[in-house]
């Protein structure tokens, strides 16, 4: 309380605290300390974004392991260690690289509890970066979380604040199921908020009502929560009050909170930085159409990027990312809809 820190610091602190608390927690990933096996200083990097900085000097190379550049080795090791008593937190630098190790996630980790009659548990956490805005081109900028939300047996976390990032990561490590923890790379430094020094766990499947309003519900994910906030500020000046719902986890999804809000406002705009086909915006729009049809006073609108790879050119990348202006326009069309 009353201590404002960045999401970068919040994630680092959560890792420190879970490792202090539980000796079975280990970390592994590429350069999470820095350049193992090559000349140079230990802990030179702390991950490509510096999130794991300081952990290897504190907990040692036995618990904080630099791995070779082999996604299938990282995830295979982590999943195997999880089934045999450890609580690994693997860092897989960018979600864009998941294809390399996808079978181990989709067909192994996600299925063990189910296929072994509930007798196996796989408490593995995979931390990975998502999102455009870093000018990192088409293979390092995607928001592929809908691919994982599609698969039963995996929990998917998409924090939008430093407070949520710390509490959800602690919950992820304590959870007995595979959790993928999607960190929007732009939010590491863009977001700073109040974070308790103590450990705390934010439960999965509990949406956060970021802003209250009676005219239109905006469901937004990760960085889009902040874009929606900007839009809501602008719209408030026009007399339109938006309610912003941040699901925090997309699997499990807090359907109740979304529907409860839609039933009050009668209008829904869903904002998702993932590609538009089969994304969370489409899923949540279908939820509202199915369960809250009677309450809707206008068609549900979605705001997503176009169905195209993330462009490298800065102007095109900026045009690709849903903006506060596009969100505000969608809300205006929804509020102004006349049957």
């Amino acid at each position, binding site marked *: *309380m*009353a201590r404002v820190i960045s999401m970068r610091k919040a994630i680092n602190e959560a890792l420190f605290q879970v490792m202090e608390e539980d000796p079975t927690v280990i970390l592994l990933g590429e350069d999470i300390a820095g350049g193992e096996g090559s000349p140079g200083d230990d802990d030179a990097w702390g991950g490509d974004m510096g999130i794991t900085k300081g952990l290897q000097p504190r907990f040692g190379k036995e618990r904080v392991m630099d791995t070779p550049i082999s996604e299938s080795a990282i995830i295979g090791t982590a999943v195997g260690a999880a089934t045999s008593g450890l609580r690994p937190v693997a860092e897989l630098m960018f979600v864009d690289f998941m294809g390399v190790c996808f079978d181990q996630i989709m067909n192994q980790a996600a299925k063990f509890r189910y296929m072994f009659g509930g007798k196996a548990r796989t408490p593995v956490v995979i931390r990975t970066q998502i999102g455009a805005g870093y000018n990192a081109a088409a293979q390092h900028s995607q928001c592929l979380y809908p691919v994982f939300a599609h698969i039963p047996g995996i929990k998917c976390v998409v924090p939008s604040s430093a*407070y949520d990032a710390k*509490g959800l990561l602690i919950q992820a490590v304590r959870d007995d199921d595979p959790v993928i923890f999607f960190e929007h790379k732009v939010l590491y430094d863009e977001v700073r908020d*109040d974070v*308790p*020094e*103590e*450990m*705390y*766990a*934010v*439960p999965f499947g*509990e949406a*956060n*009502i970021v802003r*209250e309003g009676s005219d239109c519900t905006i469901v937004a994910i990760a960085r889009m929560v902040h874009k929606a906030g900007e839009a809501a500020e602008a719209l408030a000046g026009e007399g339109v009050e938006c309610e912003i719902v941040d699901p925090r986890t997309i699997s499990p999804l807090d359907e*109740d*909170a979304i529907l409860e809000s839609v039933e009050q406002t009668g209008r829904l705009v869903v904002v998702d930085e993932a590609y538009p086909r089969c994304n969370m915006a489409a899923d949540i729009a279908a939820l509202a159409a199915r369960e809250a049809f009677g309450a809707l006073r206008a068609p549900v609108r979605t705001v997503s990027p176009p169905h195209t790879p993330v462009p490298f050119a800065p102007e095109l990348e900026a045009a690709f990312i849903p903006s506060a202006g596009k969100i505000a326009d969608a809300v205006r069309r929804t509020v102004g809809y006349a049957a």
Partner: protein
Amino acid sequence: MTGGRILAVTVPKWGMAMEEGTVTAWHVEEGAPVAEGDEVLDVESTKIANAIEARAGGVLRRRVAAVGATLPVGGLLAVIAGEDVSDEEIDGFVSGFAVEAAADDAGESGPALRFADAGGRRIRHVAHGEGGEPLVLVHGFGGDMNAWMFNQAALAADRAVHALDLPGHGGSSKDVGDGGLDVLASAVGAVMDAADAARCHLAGHSLGGAAALQAALDRPERAASLTLIAPVGLGPEIDGGYIAGFVAARRRKEMKPLAERLFADPSLVTRAFVEGLLRSKRIDGVDAALAAIASRLFADGRQTLDLAARASGLGLPVQVLWGAADAIVPAAHARRLEGATVRILEGAGHMPMMEKASEANRLIAAFAR
């Protein structure tokens, strides 16, 4: 108001997390006279809304912020001055004030958190103001120092006012031992020691009322007066469903109806207020501490403490404030304290220091002398 004094009405800091406030209504026209204590305007933070009063009388010379405007804490809302002050002076004050507010932005806001030691338990507290006979504020079950967001700064004009987190709450140690009152009272004592004065005035709300009372019983020579706000410990009745529900609540949906029971006007409960309660409960050890306290002091929906007889022989000035519409602990318990000054606040529930903040502040300030 005479002598050319100009009084700034600014956005208050209601709780440590408050950074800005939004004007929701004006109650005084420009050019109209105001008396000390008059409600000048309403301001809303993300957590809660409340009226802002004039700290001194005069004429409301300038409304600086329009309805809907959002200003940082400390930002200038209005100017009160006498008729004799010229418009040019007011203009100069307003433009000069903006510069000060901008310069202040760079620094840390609010007083620093401090930690006292109570038998090996770390007790977080924070002080506003300096000097005088200090006042120590003790929050209730499941709360923290932010329960006094409308009171602490307002009471600190001419004295130090300390607010603490009880063991098991907020930023203090989550070790509450067997959940009995002694551990809570020892934390109050530790903050009285930290206040570094011969005597302290005490004000406690609900469970914190009992803790303050016990602290005064433990060291009567150190207590100057006692204000008990809807305290526990004066009778067997309590809303056991609230206590059990609060301990069990994990989710917004479970917490919101409980929070609404605290106020006479349930519309005061915003999503941020509910989120604040949940944030406090999510901290490791809090739920276990609350469960331990509840099973010790509120077993089976009844209060097991009865301090009324002991308190009546305390030999200190004791004031009891209670919301007439308290749904958690019945206001009738106020009559069980012999010799105490009893004030029943109309239009308030179990949180009169929030719901009727100005009235509660006046009563506390006048009594704790």
